[in-house]
């Protein structure tokens, strides 16, 4: 080997990012399997373009009937909204209060193993069903109306707030806990001093976000009978009052825009 050749071998000037899946067989296998399955579903799903085009004209009829939006039954609209707001507030308070102990149970670094698994299990169950399904169950259980809505959204809040809070607890700076242990602080005092202050900003942010989110969700669960503005909307659709339905929809959008802006501002100002 000449000197130039050795030189050439030593100079390394190309580099490629290592592939995400190292084994080339598995890598290409996965890619091909995904593509094949996608093609398969596209061919197999009964997509009827005829019906889609008919749907367009039907939609046009609905929108024609909806315009101009009618504010005639404003009282009904207002009542629906106030009920939604009450549902959202009650559910947020209840959900957050329940979430805090569950989050501590579900945090790997503060709970012992059996408690940890129990906490995680509660969160997984609370998260595994969409609020609409939970609402259907609660409407069956406690009857139509806002109470079913509150219960639904409590479950929904626990699923989200407890999970996010548990993750925050797992991220805490453990040195502060160590310091409290080193002074001989009892368990609860340790949590109050070393853990709570660290998760407080997240806690407040989550609560506000959840209030916002519950207000939105209360419109959805109302459709299946859990009270609030959703119930008003479902009734309007049921009676072909498309103009009133459009009004409700527009007001929902407006209210959610406002509540999102407010909650965003508040969350930004917490340090």
């Amino acid at each position, binding site marked *: 080997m000449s000197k130039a050749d050795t030189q050439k071998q030593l100079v390394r000037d190309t580099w490629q990012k290592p592939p995400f899946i190292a084994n080339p067989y598995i890598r290409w296998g996965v890619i091909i399997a995904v593509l094949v399955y996608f093609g398969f579903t596209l061919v197999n799903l009964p997509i009827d373009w005829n019906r889609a085009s008919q749907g367009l004209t039907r939609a046009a009829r609905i929108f024609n009937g909806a315009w101009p939006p009618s504010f005639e039954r404003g009282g009904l609209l207002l009542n629906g909204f106030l009920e939604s707001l009450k549902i959202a507030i009650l559910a947020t308070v209840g959900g957050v209060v329940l979430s805090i102990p569950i989050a501590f149970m579900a945090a790997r670094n503060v709970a012992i193993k059996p408690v940890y698994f129990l906490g995680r299990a509660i969160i997984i169950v609370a998260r595994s069903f969409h609020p609409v399904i939970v609402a259907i169950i609660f409407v069956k259980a406690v009857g139509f109306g806002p109470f079913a809505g509150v219960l639904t959204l409590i479950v929904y809040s626990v699923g989200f707030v407890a999970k996010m809070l548990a993750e925050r607890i797992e991220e805490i700076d453990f040195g502060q806990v160590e*310091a409290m*242990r080193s002074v001989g*602080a009892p368990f609860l005092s340790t949590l109050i001093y070393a853990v709570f202050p660290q998760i407080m900003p997240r806690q407040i942010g989550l609560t506000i976000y959840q209030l916002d989110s519950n207000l939105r969700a209360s419109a959805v669960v109302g459709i299946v009978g859990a009270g609030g503005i959703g119930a008003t909307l479902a009734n309007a659709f049921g009676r072909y009052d498309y103009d009133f339905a459009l009004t409700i929809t527009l007001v929902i959008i407006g209210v959610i825009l406002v509540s999102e802006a407010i909650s965003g501002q508040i969350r930004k100002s917490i340090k």
Partner: protein
Amino acid sequence: MLKITDLVKRYDTGQPVLKNLNLEIKGESVVSIIGSSGAGKSTLLRCINRLVEPSSGQIQLNGTDLTSLNRSQLRKARHKIGMVFQSFNLIDRLTVMENVQSGRLGSLPTWRAIARKYPKEDIRRAYELMDRVGIAHYADKRADELSGGERQRVGVVRALMQEPEILLADEPTASLDPKTSEQIMGLLRDLSREFALPVLINIHNVTEAKEYTDRIVGMRYGRIIFDALPSDLDKDAMDSIYSGTPAADRGADVQQSTVSGDVGAVAT
């Protein structure tokens, strides 16, 4: 008096980090422990208040065998052992006063801790101590607003609030600039004299160890291989303390993973 006899600490797998270690500290002396990372300095300190559970051996503090205590006895014993940390471990979002008072949590009923209803004598003592180290005007400030040196002063006052029988300092100056670092070392030495308090300091800075402490203990791979006056620490001694092998690094890894919390660690 602190008396450590035949102390062994072995983490789940592998070599013991502390190997049949003996150490005695009498009176109010300031003792520094030096040694390369992974020599077992941190583990030794944490075995004393059992933040790290010793595998075997005895640790006696003024007649009490710390290794044989049950959980509630241990909490009481810990109350008499002050500790200062490298990263301060203050509660960032609480005020300096709350941080200082947290040193009393071991004897404060939980409801008082939650309501911040601190006893009058504790508040008086807190102000006196904060005055002593020059942070009294920060009482209402949040701990994360302070500079490094000020934060370590809060850490020291928190430990002194415990009215400790011994003070453990785990690399108390490693996160500080050289000037502040010297101030804190001087403070620890002075406080040791004022409160007749034995102080045990892990430290990397050998110059500071020589200047501010009464006795230097040199560790290597879990053993004490040097124990004498600062003036006796010559080049040969330094070389033998700091000569390293991969075993030292392995020790360091083990140490880190336990310090940052095992399962249910808050409860123990």
